[in-house]
C-alpha cells in the first residue's frame, strides 16, 4: 500500500559534507494545499534540504520527493514546481525580461509567459533594465517571477524575505496567501519565525540537520500561553487552591508563585474564591519567538 500523495516528502533524508552531517535523517510529508514554514537557525540544514528536494544536490542517504518522485523524474517539472533559492542567481548584464525569456524558452513557453510573470510580481517597469541596477527587493521579485513562469502548483522558497523592507515583506505575505488560497502548496524557509508566522499553517523546525518540531501553527501558539506570576503572603494556600483547579504551579521564592498554562483572570478569581490576598498578579506570556529559540537552542557539545 502506498502512502497518500504528498506534495513534498522527505524520507530519512541525510546529507554529509565531509565530516559534517548537514541533514540528519529528516522525514516529513506536506499535504497538497498547505503553507509550511521551514524554520531553523542559519546553518541548520534548510537550504541543503531544499536543494535535495529540487534535485540540485544528491542525498547521501534517504529520498527527497516532490509529487512522490525525485525532482529529475517529474515530467516537465517547471510546469508543476516553482522555486527560488537565492536572490542573487542572475546574470547582472541581462535584463530581467531576458532572464525570464531564457527560462521560458527552455521549456517551450512563449515570451507572453515572461511578461505575465513580470506583471504578477509588479516588475513591468524594470523589465528591460539590466539586473545590475535592481534592488535586492526587485531581485527577490524577479526570482519569484521565474518560479511562477510555469504556473506551478508547488512553490519552494528559500529565505524569500531576506533583505526585504517591511513593505516588501507585507507584499510577499499577501502574495503567498493569495497563492495558497488557490489550493496550491508552499514550502517557505526562514530563520525568523516572525517573518512567516502570519502566513503559514504549519511549521517544520529543524536544528543541526534534525527535525525538532513539526506542528500546526495553532499548536505552537498554544504552547505559548504563558504563566502567571503571583505575589502573595499565603503561597501554600494559593498553591492548594490552584492545584484543585488542576493548574500547575512552581514557586520562585517564598512569597511568589508561577501558575502555568492559565490566565491572570482565572488566577485572580481562584484567589478571590479562596480568600487569598494578592499583592501582585502578572501575566508572563512568552512569545512565539521564545518558543522557537527554545526549540532551536544549540545544545553545547
Amino acid at each position, binding site marked *: 500500500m502506498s502512502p497518500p500523495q504528498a506534495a513534498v516528502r522527505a524520507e530519512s533524508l541525510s546529507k554529509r559534507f565531509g565530516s559534517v552531517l548537514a541533514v540528519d535523517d529528516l522525514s516529513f510529508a506536506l499535504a497538497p494545499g498547505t503553507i509550511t514554514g521551514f524554520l531553523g537557525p542559519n546553518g541548520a540544514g534548510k537550504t541543503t534540504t531544499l536543494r535535495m528536494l529540487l534535485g540540485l544536490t*544528491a542525498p547521501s542517504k534517504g529520498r527527497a520527493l516532490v509529487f512522490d518522485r525525485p525532482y529529475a523524474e517529474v515530467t516537465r517539472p517547471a510546469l508543476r*514546481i516553482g522555486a527560488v533559492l537565492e536572490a542573487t542567481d542572475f*546574470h547582472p548584464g*541581462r535584463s530581467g525580461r531576458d532572464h525570464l525569456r531564457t527560462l521560458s524558452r527552455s521549456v517551450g513557453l512563449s515570451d507572453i509567459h515572461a511578461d505575465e510573470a513580470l506583471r504578477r510580481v509588479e516588475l513591468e517597469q524594470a523589465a528591460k533594465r539590466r539586473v545590475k541596477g535592481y534592488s535586492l527587493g526587485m531581485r527577490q521579485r524577479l526570482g519569484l517571477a521565474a518560479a511562477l513562469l510555469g504556473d506551478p502548483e508547488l512553490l519552494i522558497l528559500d529565505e524569500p524575505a531576506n533583505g526585504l523592507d517591511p513593505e516588501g515583506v507585507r507584499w510577499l505575505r499577501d502574495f503567498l496567501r493569495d497563492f495558497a488560497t488557490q489550493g496550491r502548496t508552499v514550502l517557505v524557509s526562514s530563520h525568523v519565525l516572525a517573518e512567516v508566522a502570519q502566513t503559514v499553517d504549519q511549521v517544520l523546525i529543524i536544528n543541526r540537520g534534525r527535525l525538532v518540531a513539526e506542528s500546526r501553527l495553532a499548536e505552537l501558539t498554544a504552547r505559548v500561553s504563558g504563566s502567571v506570576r503571583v505575589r502573595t503572603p499565603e503561597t501554600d494556600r494559593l498553591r492548594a487552591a490552584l492545584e484543585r483547579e488542576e493548574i500547575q504551579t512552581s514557586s520562585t521564592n517564598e512569597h511568589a508563585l508561577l501558575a502555568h498554562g492559565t490566565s491572570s483572570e482565572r488566577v485572580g478569581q481562584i484567589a478571590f474564591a479562596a480568600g487569598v490576598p494578592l499583592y501582585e498578579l502578572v501575566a508572563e506570556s512568552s512569545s512565539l519567538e521564545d518558543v522557537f529559540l527554545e526549540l532551536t537552542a544549540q545544545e553545547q557539545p
Partner: protein
Amino acid sequence: MIDQIRAELLKIRSTRTTLGLVVGMIGLIVLFALLSGLLTKAPNLATSEDQRGILDVGSTAGLFSALAGVMLITSEYRHGTIKPTFLFDPRRSRVLAAKAIAGLLAGIALGLVGVALGFGIGALALHTRGIPFALTGAQTALLIGGALAAVALWGVIGVAVGAIVRSQVGTIIGLLAWGLIIDNLLFAFVPSVGRYSPNRAENALEGLTAAHLLPAAAGGAVLLAWAAALTIAGILATARRDVT
C-alpha cells in the same frame, strides 16, 4: 532539445559579453591581417606555405569561439543561473548537449566572420602588392574550410572544458596556458605526442605541412575526437556533481 538550444542562443545574445567578444575578435584579426599582409617582405611570401601564414589569420577566431563556449557554461556557475537552468530542465546531459550545440553554432558564426576577414584582407594585401597567389584551389578550400570547422569545434571544446572546470577564470587561464605554453613545449620536445593536441590537429586540418603534423583528414578526425571526448567528460562531470 530545440527549445533548449533556442534558450542557450538567447543567453548568448542577451548579454554584452558576446558583443565584446565579436568586437575584440574583429579588431584583433583586422590588425593581425593588416600587419602581416603589409609588413611581411615580398620574398617571404613566395610559396604557398608562406602565404598561408597571412591568409590563415582568421583562425584566431578559434580563441574567441572557445571563450564564447567557456562563457556559455561558466557564467552560469559564476552568477548562479545554473540553478534555475537545471530547475527548468533537470536532465543535465540534455542541457549540456544543447550548450555544446549552441557553442558550435556560435563558433560557426564567429568563424564565418573571422575567416572571411582574415582571408579577405590577406588576399587583398597580396593582390594590391602584386604578389601572385600561390595556393591551388584545393589548398584554398582546405584552408578556409578547415579553419571554419576548427573555429566551430573550439566553441564545443570551450563548453566542455568549462563544464569540467566550472570556474570561469580557471578555465580561461587553463586554456590560455595550454594554447600558449604547454602545447608549444609539447610539440617542440615530443612532437610524436604533441601533434595529437587539438591545436596541432587544427593546423593539420587547415592544410599546414610543417614537420610532424598529421595529414589533413587525420587532423580533422583528431580535433573532432577531442571535442567529442571532452564533451562526454563534461556531461559526466556535470551529472555527478552537486550544484550549490
